[in-house]
């Protein structure tokens, strides 16, 4: 019915998008029920275009019909609108929160773009992407330190921001001819640890499927 706003939580996403997966993991970590609406990005729906007119991208969270866009903004929104435990950003510690935001932002700035160059480019471009990827993964491992998770003992904001990309590690390894286990053993161990969490196991696709989907993208773009 026109004008009637749908109540509750809905998430507009795309199955393989790590950005959408961040939101799904956060929703599950918070124990929130929601309706998932898979979007056709080749043929964008009225709902998506109306909910995110500026960027026309997924993910979009709708809460009682009101849209929130940008995955990390959605995750922070869920953390603040549903403050019952667990807190994804460490409560009451502005410095720790700033550090968490910094590393989530680092993932946003560096990882997806570098990964894309790894499977798109050849020659020097590819070699540079490979070098950068190793550096990025090592930097993230440095940030992880000796902790079980990026925030220490508890699974939190940075873990949510990064964990969807662990399904892309295999693709990075195959396209980049590198080994995450060898370059960053602690990061590889963290990935395995996260995979044991129900929220992560439920929402990530097997790495082989991700690799397949990238191969599909390459074909469509006419890249060898």
């Amino acid at each position, binding site marked *: 019915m026109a004008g009637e706003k749908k109540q509750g939580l809905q998430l507009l996403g795309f199955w393989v998008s790590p950005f959408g997966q961040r939101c799904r993991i956060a929703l599950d970590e918070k124990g929130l029920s929601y309706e998932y609406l898979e979007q056709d990005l080749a043929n964008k729906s009225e709902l998506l275009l109306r909910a995110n007119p500026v960027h026309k991208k997924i993910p979009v969270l709708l*809460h009682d019909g009101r849209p929130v*866009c940008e995955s990390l903004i*959605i995750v922070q*929104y869920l953390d*603040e*609108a549903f403050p019952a435990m667990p807190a994804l950003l460490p409560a009451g510690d502005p410095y720790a929160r*700033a550090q968490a*935001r910094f590393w989530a*932002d*680092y993932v946003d700035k560096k990882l997806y773009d570098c990964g894309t160059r790894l499977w798109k480019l050849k020659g020097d471009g590819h070699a540079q992407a490979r070098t950068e990827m190793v550096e990025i993964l090592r930097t993230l491992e440095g940030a992880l330190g000796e902790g079980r998770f990026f925030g220490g003992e508890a699974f939190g904001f940075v873990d949510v921001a990064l964990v969807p990309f662990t399904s892309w590690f295999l693709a990075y390894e195959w396209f980049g001819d590198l080994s995450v286990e060898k370059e960053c053993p602690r990061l590889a161990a963290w990935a395995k640890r996260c995979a044991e969490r129900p929220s992560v196991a439920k929402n990530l696709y097997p790495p082989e499927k991700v690799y397949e989907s990238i191969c599909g993208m390459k074909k469509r773009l006419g890249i060898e």
Partner: protein
Amino acid sequence: MSEAEAVRVIGLWASPFVIRVLIALKLKGVKYELVEEVVGKKSELLLRSNPVHKKIPVLLHHGKPISESLIIVQYIDEVWSSDAPAFLHADPYTRAVQRFWAQYVDDKGTDDGGKDQAAEQLSAALQLLEEAFVKLSQGKHYFGGDSVGYLDIALVSYVGWVKAVEKIAGVTLLDKAKVPNLVAWADRLCTHPAVVDAIPDADKFVEFSVTYGSFSKPIINGPK
């Protein structure tokens, strides 16, 4: 340690990202020391404080570094929460909207598409921001309503730069006919005591771009 020594900002007067940190500190009445970088030469202190990105601004609070301007502004808001009205709204949904537009501003502001494209893109972005202002201000003076908020800080930091682009490209971006609310907002906010000293004259920005060649690169990337 003196009061001012407890809070230091590593930066450069011409960077809009540094300007927003200074405005945030001034709004909270926090005394600070500005450690000016030399364009073309990154200091030891900067490299030590922000080894990941090697960029300004960096806030040093009792020696602990915080990087990325919007993350710094949120940190300032949380640490000095009892001083001055909060930058981010109390309501999670409004916060999400403020964060969305601040991110949008940065996406557009750092789009290095060359002089002509820059003017065109800025014009379109300002149109969207004009509409956002009408919605968010609810008839009041600022994006934050009655008080200067997160989005006001994020956007006003570019005003000196926008005025410089107007001079260099010979265009009117802050056009009373097209974006009347933004023009009124900019005029009002630029005379605010916390802002007036943080944003030099447009001519200074023009001079800076003439001295250092490329218009935006030295500012965006910080000193090389």
